[in-house]
């Protein structure tokens, strides 16, 4: 650490690392804004000469991106709300209420984390089919709203809250749901935001389940729609495909810029304490 010669070298490496992670994103954005002539030339144009939105309207024409966007938004908002509600209510019950065989039940909840999602694809498809939910929002959302990890995080957090506060609420005659809403949740805000953001990111990025459970273009989500766009354009029109890709990524990039400390905090906490 004391050797002076290593410090400049470390900066060179640091800049190199930044370049490796930024370059693909720069290439995505600049290609989406380039004229075809700039994309299909060699050596490549390192920046767009004339900015154009044409690629976005071409992507919109090739596939119903407005519909994909709507579907992704519905699934992310409703799915996240339901899953976080499940996590909070289950965590509250396990942290504050009495019930016979509570420990066994909690182990059952946590045990769901041991079941790899990919293994459940076929049976869940058949279950959803027998419920008549193929190609519906219910089929897209419901199988994913069970919560084990977020329940675990929330419960651990509830147990760290000072008991005086919840006791005081109970003495004041507040019912459990009131205590949860007025006392426990406001005191758990950072953890709650973390859980919401991580869940929303997962819902938005989910790929294999929407791919399997939907079968018409108007029910597809953005990540699946992107696969369709790519197959349709046949890799011949990179400008259009990159514009579509940017539409999929942009909302998550925005959320990341705004909430990255919650995401980072939640992930390191889950890893180091879990």
């Amino acid at each position, binding site marked *: 650490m004391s050797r002076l010669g290593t410090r400049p070298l470390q900066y060179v490496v640091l800049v190199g690392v930044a370049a490796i992670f930024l370059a693909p994103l720069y290439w995505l954005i600049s290609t989406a804004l380039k004229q075809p002539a700039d994309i299909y030339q060699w050596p490549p144009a390192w920046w767009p000469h004339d900015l154009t939105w044409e690629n976005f309207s071409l992507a919109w024409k090739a596939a119903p991106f407005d519909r994909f966007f709507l579907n992704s938004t519905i699934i992310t908002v409703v799915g996240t709300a339901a899953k976080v509600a499940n996590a909070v209510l289950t965590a509250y019950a396990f942290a504050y209420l009495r019930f016979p065989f509570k420990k066994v039940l909690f182990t059952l909840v946590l045990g769901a984390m041991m079941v790899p999602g990919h293994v459940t694809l*076929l049976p869940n498809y058949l279950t959803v089919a027998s419920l008549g939910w193929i190609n519906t929002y219910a089929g897209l959302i419901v199988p994913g709203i069970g919560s084990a990890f977020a329940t675990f995080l929330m419960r651990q957090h509830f147990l760290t809250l000072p008991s005086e506060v*919840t006791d005081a609420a109970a003495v004041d005659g507040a019912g459990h749901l009131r205590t949860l809403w007025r006392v426990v949740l406001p005191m758990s805000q950072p953890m709650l935001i973390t859980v919401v953001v991580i869940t929303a990111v997962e819902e938005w990025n989910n790929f294999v389940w929407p791919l399997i459970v939907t079968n018409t273009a108007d029910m597809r989500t953005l990540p699946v729609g*992107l696969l369709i766009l790519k197959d349709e354009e046949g890799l011949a029109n990179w400008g259009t495909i990159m514009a579509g890709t940017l539409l999929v990524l942009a909302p998550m990039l925005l959320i990341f810029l705004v909430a*990255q400390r919650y995401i980072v905090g939640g992930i390191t906490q889950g890893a180091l304490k879990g």
Partner: protein
Amino acid sequence: MTALDLPVRTHPDERRQVASGNQEQRRRRRREYRLFALLVAPNLLVIAVFAYWPILYNAFLSLTDWNMIAARPTFVGLTNYANILTDPAFHKTLWITLVFTGLIVAGSLVIGLALALLFNQPLKGRGVVRTISFAPHILSGAAVATIWLFIFDPGYGLLRALIEPFGAEPPDWMNNSDWALPGLVIVYLWKNVGFTALIYLAGLQGLPKELDEAAAIDGAGTWTRFRRIKLPLLAPITFFLLITTVIGTFQAFDVIAVMTGGGPGDATTTLSWSIYNEGFQAFNAGRAATLSIIMFVILLIVTAVQARVMERRVHYK
């Protein structure tokens, strides 16, 4: 309040009930049970139907032959297991899965730790670079795969522009059975080393400084201190990352689906791809369920090993 209070936390109602037995208290307890059931039921129901039931359902389906069109599955006993376990194509799939997983685990541990050591130096801008390197982790795998498909494009891709100045010919990555798998590994590493680095960095920052300083005073060099002090102390984190990366990589799907579709030929057909392929392209429920059970058992063993090691760690702490 001390940490010891935590596990025995109870509702204040319970503490007030020293003299138990009167009716009011029994009614209150019943109300509490009912509320508990009400709050927990939706979550438990979804978990039961969509996480536990699938295991039993898979086990049943794996004993049948069914194209999902016929009215009901035909029972065939262990035929699917016998066929799959002796099938050279399955052996290749398993081998590809192991190579794929091994490369990603080794790559993300080594590169992730190297990045964490870099981010742990007092450099200006290290926080920004750490955030940048982590960003791909939260991006859609399908979208990331599409970007890299363009980067790998042999005609107009970014990688061609980087490789050509050195006089080398760029491969046709995703259409070449020798290059497709390494290409996928590059994409997964790009997407996930920022996560590994983040966890390692948290670990490094939690290490006691005294040991390192004492060793430095005793004349131990940077490399010796890294190998003899930091690396052993980071072992639990390395182990955690190893397990989670194995579990995640075994189920890798979106990047494969977008970039190769298991091909060219079967060059990138992993266990996760073949489950999808058997179930949703060949409509062979029996074989897909059998492959699912095989994956479940493999990952269950991995998780069990983790549980055992973690338990020991806690005991000896």
